[in-house]
């Protein structure tokens, strides 16, 4: 038996191809949207992977350091380092900001890392060019996505930094490239006030009778001195010693240090389940809308193509063609349209993905699921046309 669907497609290939291309662009947008979501999840996981930590110690009752602000004293890491099961502990600060680079701004996450060695928690695990930070101040390692190159000078707050190393795929959960600088510089950038603010604060403190007591010499100076010290970090990253479970180490820190501790799975839940949950829902809504629009387009095209063939369908039925042969013809045409659309969409998404400002991760499993979703949509969309065709009375082929 010849393929009626195949012959019809070959006969009106232009209509099919151009409709398929239109549908394909829509499917391309759908696949890209799914890729954007996957990219957000991948960015979140990359952030956790690249931190080199097994536990995140943050301010009590906060979801820090990525989903909420968190502030802990920078000397707590020493006590944590000595606790059983802790192989390494390091302070870290995170600050998302605009960094001046020549005449342009770059949005980046500035990460303050403690002096130490490559491989310590918080440090970039590998470089694609240059070297790690070796000085205590004014050196930076930047992700290649930031656009910085080796030797570039960038400005964070009032200070200038020289880019000495480059990383790849070191991004925040928002996809912003990371810039690593020494911890002290990062603390200054995050917590230090500008000169005017410091002067203003001093005047206010001097005017406050609680601090400026003539009967207590040295009190005002002590208060002023405490106000200019920056001893806060956002989190302490902890790496476990072999043989310890995260909970074994986390429980004593919570109990004795009065801090909140998250392990890897909890931090993933915060990043993916909370931080990007709204964005994921937004993307999910877009996917639903795009699926409905795709279905409507396929249904409309297949319905129109079927309407154009009503007389031929009546003739086919009159001369003894089975209903299932006619239904199969319409269904296969819808599936062919979906297949053309999917191929076009996949190609379009593959070529477009690298040009998106955020990481777009096109996963083969998503493409496969997308293919089956498109096929399902085409099947559903063809039902209207099939119903129309099956209702055609063969008597319509006979005039009068």
């Amino acid at each position, binding site marked *: *038996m*010849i393929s*009626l669907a195949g*012959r*019809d497609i*070959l*006969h*009106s290939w232009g209509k099919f191809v151009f409709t398929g291309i239109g549908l394909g662009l829509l499917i391309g947008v759908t696949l890209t949207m799914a890729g954007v979501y996957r990219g957000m999840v991948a960015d979140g996981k990359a952030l956790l992977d690249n931190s080199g930590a097994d536990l995140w110690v943050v301010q009590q009752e906060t979801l820090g350091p990525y989903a909420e602000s968190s502030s802990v004293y920078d000397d707590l890491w020493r006590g944590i380092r000595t606790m059983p099961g802790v192989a390494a502990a390091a302070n870290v600060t995170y600050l998302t900001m605009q960094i001046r680079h020549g005449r342009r701004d770059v949005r980046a996450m500035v990460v303050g890392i403690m002096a130490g060695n490559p491989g310590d928690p918080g440090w970039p695990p590998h470089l694609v060019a240059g070297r790690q930070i070796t000085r205590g101040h004014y050196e930076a390692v930047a992700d290649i996505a930031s656009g910085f190159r080796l030797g570039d000078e960038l400005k964070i707050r009032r200070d200038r930094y020289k880019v000495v190393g480059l990383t790849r795929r070191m991004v925040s959960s928002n996809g912003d490239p990371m810039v690593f600088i020494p911890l002290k510089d990062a603390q200054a950038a995050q917590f230090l006030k500008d000169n005017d603010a410091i002067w203003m604060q001093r005047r206010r403190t001097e005017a406050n009778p609680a601090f400026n007591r003539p009967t207590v010499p040295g009190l005002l100076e002590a208060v002023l001195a405490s106000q200019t010290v920056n001893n806060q970090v956002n989190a302490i990253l902890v790496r476990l010693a072999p043989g310890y479970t995260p909970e074994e180490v986390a429980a004593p820190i919570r109990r004795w240090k009065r801090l909140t501790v998250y392990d890897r799975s909890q931090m993933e839940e915060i990043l993916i389940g909370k931080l990007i949950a709204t964005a994921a829902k937004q993307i999910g809504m877009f996917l639903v809308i795009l699926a409905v629009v795709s279905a409507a387009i396929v249904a409309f095209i297949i319905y129109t193509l079927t309407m154009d063939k009503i*007389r*031929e369908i009546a*003739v*086919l*039925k*009159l*001369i*003894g*063609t*089975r209903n299932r*042969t006619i239904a199969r013809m319409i269904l296969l045409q819808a599936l062919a349209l979906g297949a053309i659309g999917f191929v076009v969409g996949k190609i379009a998404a593959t070529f477009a993905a690298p040009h998106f400002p955020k990481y777009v991760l096109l996963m083969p499993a998503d493409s496969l699921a997308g293919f089956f979703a498109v096929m399902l949509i085409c099947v559903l969309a063809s039902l209207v046309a099939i119903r129309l065709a099956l209702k055609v*009375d*063969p*008597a319509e*082929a*006979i*005039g*009068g």
Partner: protein
Amino acid sequence: MSGQGILIEGLSKRYGEGDTAVLALKNVNMRVAPGEVVGLIGPSGSGKSTLLKCLGAVIDPTAGRMMLGDEVIYDDGWKVRDLRALRRDKIGFVFQAPYLIPFLDVTDNVALLPMLAGVSNDQARARALALLAALDVQHRAQAMPSQLSGGEQQRVAIARGLVNRPPVILADEPTAPLDSQRALAVIRILNDMARRYQTAIIVVTHDEKIIPTFKRIYHIRDGVTHEEAGEGRGFD
């Protein structure tokens, strides 16, 4: 084909019920022998199409009896379970317009019917090509319907009606869109095919040009038929 070709006795068709009922066919009797071509003539609304639809097993008669060859197909109810198969295997259709499938070439338009009946593609195409040769359109076998003239399209449609060797062909105004020369050529072909394949052919027509070609004519008016002898010119 054995027996009497097509035989209709006391066929009636009523549309609607009660006060709105319309009796479209009233006790119609008709007989067409194998190898015979008869004309069915009547004005618009006379019941021609209703009779053709009843014969073509696309609508249910209300009462009567119909036989194809030796087989009773209707006797106050269909005696055949699969009307689709009956239409496919026992009845050929030729329409006013050819209604060829636009996305199939000429050969496959004709070969489609045997393919639907389960004949292999090669055999079906061979059968189609033989018929196209008999109808003198084999040179257009690979053409698409849109590339054919009106006369060629109608010959292909006749080939499609004949390809399953049905005992009966129902032709619904097959010459309406054709000029007199082509119309007469189509009737000549139908007569040739009726003789060659012993097919009973009923031609519904208004066409004054071809009416004199029938040896027997059934006139139908207000659902009632009466038979008369035709002139039977030209095709002996």
